[in-house]
């Protein structure tokens, strides 16, 4: 998600930050009135934010997009049991044929997939999904009148789509029948994309809820109310979405034959007991919206929620560092899963500022920063120090690599600072550090100030409301700023683009870093398909930014999630759209375990 690229991206970034800061979020809670455990397989989840609505093109925050993905589906999805993340066909029959120049993608659709029954269709019977539905859905994403929040995803990517969007921007009505060159339904089940330029990450966008398939009849039937009437092809149905604190989904009776995967990465082998079973595995999902962390935590402990990300300040009462969860929780049969998140926190220099073209100064400041204490203070010691920009878990991350200017080394820092021309900080002006206005952000800023004072660098912490900070970064009126980035898709390109010179503000490169060597490598790698050659380029770029210190790196966070003994197949994933269909509930075990809660 971009740090500074117009409002739509701001909102996205905000989502990511809140995701990152509050560790993990999705949890569940069951009906409070029933004391007895029901015999139905009911998944009790909870989310920590209001759901904006059920229209895929507006689902730009984690919470809404997860809800959308229970009802709607896309061409592709991530293999549930495979890491690193692997794309597999979902509504597509198979992975697409890609032309040699990497510009044309041809998809065959599964046949016999139907939309949920709804009064918008003739006889209220859901009709079959066709390639035209995808053409329509993606045009909706580009429709200038709808102001879709996910447009950035395909902006400039599909041939003719931008032109189509611009053409209708000032006209009273948008013509969906006009053909767009890069987006064609060749026949009923064949869909063809033509890209404007090579973009190997294109397929990832087809696994994001923004591009999921909606039916034209339904959109037209409900008009503005469409956002509250989700009708997709997915495993669950929701008759109407209301702004309440509880959303109840039921199993889609006409869901196509989709089965639990029978292959997995070694760490998920134990989940293969469900292999071959028809999805979804549960009959019902109850999603409870619980914004405050304490009620979530208490409800989880009572077994009314199936899994929960541990709230930061309850961490000490749940986890003993190095040992796992407390005996108390263990006795209740609760399990812990720890997963690195695909993200990075950092303090960026504004490279437009002459002061920071002094590489030694940047290195000195990086060497003065103590990531170990920072980790302990702000992440309960659970995060992984970030040696460079690419997080572990995706190609481009260098296992075991040690950044020479990372990890506190005051002596080195002082030496570098002297070499930079500012012995003991003499001659250096006061440097401002801008951060968002939350309590934790301020504390992180104060910590940074404290660290820098050890080598005589004076820092002034300035808090800003989120939009204000974005504006300041865009207008280049910052010196240093603290921020984080969470992956949109599992590809190092999504991180490296943050430092690519031509991407500078208002693009994603908020720090304005511009290094010719890096730019060349990036340009080469950006058009390559996943290959050892591309990975080598990624690693080389990753190493360059570690040594040149365009940012002071922070940490890659890890998310800690607790789940009850009766929840089967739970995996904590960065990209968990559609996850609910794979989860299973052991009703007998739940009855047994509930006695102990």
């Amino acid at each position: 998600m971009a740090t500074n690229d117009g409002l739509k991206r701001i909102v996205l970034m905000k989502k990511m930050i809140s995701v990152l800061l509050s560790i993990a979020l999705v949890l569940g809670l069951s009906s409070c009135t029933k004391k007895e455990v029901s015999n139905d397989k009911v998944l009790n989840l909870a989310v920590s934010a209001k759901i904006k609505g059920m229209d895929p093109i507006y689902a730009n925050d984690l919470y809404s997009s997860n809800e959308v993905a229970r009802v709607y589906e896309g061409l592709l999805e991530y293999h549930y049991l495979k890491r690193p993340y692997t794309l597999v066909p979902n509504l597509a029959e198979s992975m697409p044929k890609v032309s040699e120049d990497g510009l044309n993608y041809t998809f065959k659709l599964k046949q016999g997939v139907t939309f949920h029954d709804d009064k918008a269709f003739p006889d209220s019977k859901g009709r079959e999904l066709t390639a035209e539905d995808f053409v329509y859905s993606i045009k909706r994403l580009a429709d200038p009148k709808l102001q879709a929040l996910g447009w950035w995803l395909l902006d400039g990517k599909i041939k003719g789509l931008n032109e189509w969007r611009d053409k209708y921007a000032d006209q009273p009505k948008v013509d969906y029948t006009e053909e767009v060159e890069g987006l064609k339904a060749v026949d009923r089940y064949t869909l063809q994309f033509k890209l404007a330029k090579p973009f190997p990450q294109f397929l990832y966008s087809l696994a994001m809820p923004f591009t999921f398939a909606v039916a034209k009849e339904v959109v037209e039937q409900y008009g503005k109310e469409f956002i509250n009437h989700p009708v997709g092809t997915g495993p669950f149905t929701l008759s109407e979405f209301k702004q309440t604190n509880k959303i109840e989904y039921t199993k889609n009776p006409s869901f196509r034959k989709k089965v639990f995967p029978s292959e997995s990465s070694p760490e998920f082998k134990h989940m293969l007991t469900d292999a071959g079973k028809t999805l979804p595995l549960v009959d019902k999902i109850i999603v409870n919206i619980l914004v405050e962390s304490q009620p979530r935590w208490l409800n989880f402990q009572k077994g009314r929620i199936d899994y929960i990300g541990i709230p930061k300040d309850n961490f000490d009462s749940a986890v003993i560092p190095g040992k796992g969860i407390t005996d108390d929780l263990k006795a209740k049969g609760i399990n812990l899963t720890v997963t690195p998140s695909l993200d990075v926190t950092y303090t960026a220099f504004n490279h437009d500022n002459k002061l920071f073209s002094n590489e030694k100064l940047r290195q000195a400041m990086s060497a003065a920063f103590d990531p170990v204490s920072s980790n302990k203070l702000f992440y309960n010691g659970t995060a992984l120090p970030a040696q460079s920009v690419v997080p572990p878990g995706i190609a481009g991350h260098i296992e075991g690599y040690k950044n020479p200017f990372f990890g506190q080394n005051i002596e080195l820092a002082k030496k570098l600072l002297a070499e930079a021309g500012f012995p003991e900080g003499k001659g250096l002006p006061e440097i401002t550090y801008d951060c968002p206005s939350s309590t934790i952000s301020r504390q992180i800023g104060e910590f940074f100030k404290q660290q820098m004072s050890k080598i005589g660098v004076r820092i002034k912490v300035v808090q800003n409301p989120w939009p204000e900070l974005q504006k300041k970064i865009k207008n280049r009126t910052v010196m240093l700023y603290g921020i984080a980035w969470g992956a949109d898709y599992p590809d190092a390109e999504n991180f490296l683009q943050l430092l690519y010179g031509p991407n500078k503000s208002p693009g994603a490169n908020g720090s304005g870093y511009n290094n010719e060597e890096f730019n060349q490598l990036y340009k080469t790698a950006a058009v390559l398909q996943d290959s050892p050659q591309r990975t080598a380029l990624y690693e080389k770029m990753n190493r360059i930014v570690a040594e040149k210190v365009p940012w002071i790196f922070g940490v890659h966070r890890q998310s800690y999630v607790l789940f009850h003994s009766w929840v089967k197949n739970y995996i904590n994933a960065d990209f968990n759209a559609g996850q609910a269909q794979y989860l299973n509930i052991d009703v007998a075990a739940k009855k047994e375990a509930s006695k102990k809660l």
Partner: protein
Amino acid sequence: MENAQAVTTNINKPREEKSKSLWRHAFETIMKDKMAVVSILIFLSYSAIALLTTFDLVAGDWAKEVGGSYTAPSAEHWFGTDIFGRSVMAKTLKGTQVAMSIGLFTALISGFIGVLLGAIAGFYGGKVDEVIVWFYTTFSSIPSIMLLVAITFILGKGLLAVYLALGFTSWVSLCRLIRGEVMRHKDREYVHAATAIGGNDFRKLFKHILPNVLHIVIINFSLQFQVAIKSEVILSYLGLGVQGRPSWGTMIDDAKLELARGVWWQLAAATLAMFVIVLSLNILGDALRDALDPKLKGK
């Protein structure tokens, strides 16, 4: 609002014994009130702490790490330590400086605006009065928190912005009171006398009338002082207050996260410090009114 007819003034009233001045009388009244004396002492000691911390004679090393993160209160650190291992005691003391300076400057700014506008409106009446009354009525209909937030957005961050923001938003009640009092006084004989010997408006207003309504300003000052301290805490809690130095508001902001892990001392220290000064100023304000407001004489 005061009703002019019901008031008996003690000015120009012949007395048998040597008459005490209003101020002398007020001083004696206050000295008889033990609570008020204690409040004054507390106020003076807070002021002293604020002055001492300004020159780094006390709590100058508040930024130093003195122990581990979140050390509980002990004989060594009375109020424990914060997330970075800094002494909460030192932070609280340093926070006094922020609180007292904000109280003082805000009360001064709002006093100045309130007295000036109130006096002009009350004295001249007519169109001038209408304009000023319209202005403060409109102004006071804007929720003050919104106004505070808006002003800090415009002025940027920092102590000066907080002084101005709080000063600009808290003058209305004083302005109303002064306007009413000045209206009441401007037809008094002593004012006519001043006119007769050729006093101009400025002289009549500031030399003759103002000293007679000054008690309202003083009472208001002490009340405004504590309102400003509270408002600063709210602003800092919202992340709009002082930056880069400890204040009670930021301490409470920190505490909202710490409480879940059982760290209560930062909240306790900041609220205790605030509680004592706010309570003292309230008591003092009451005592001042008792002593200075002629209508309450002999109650």
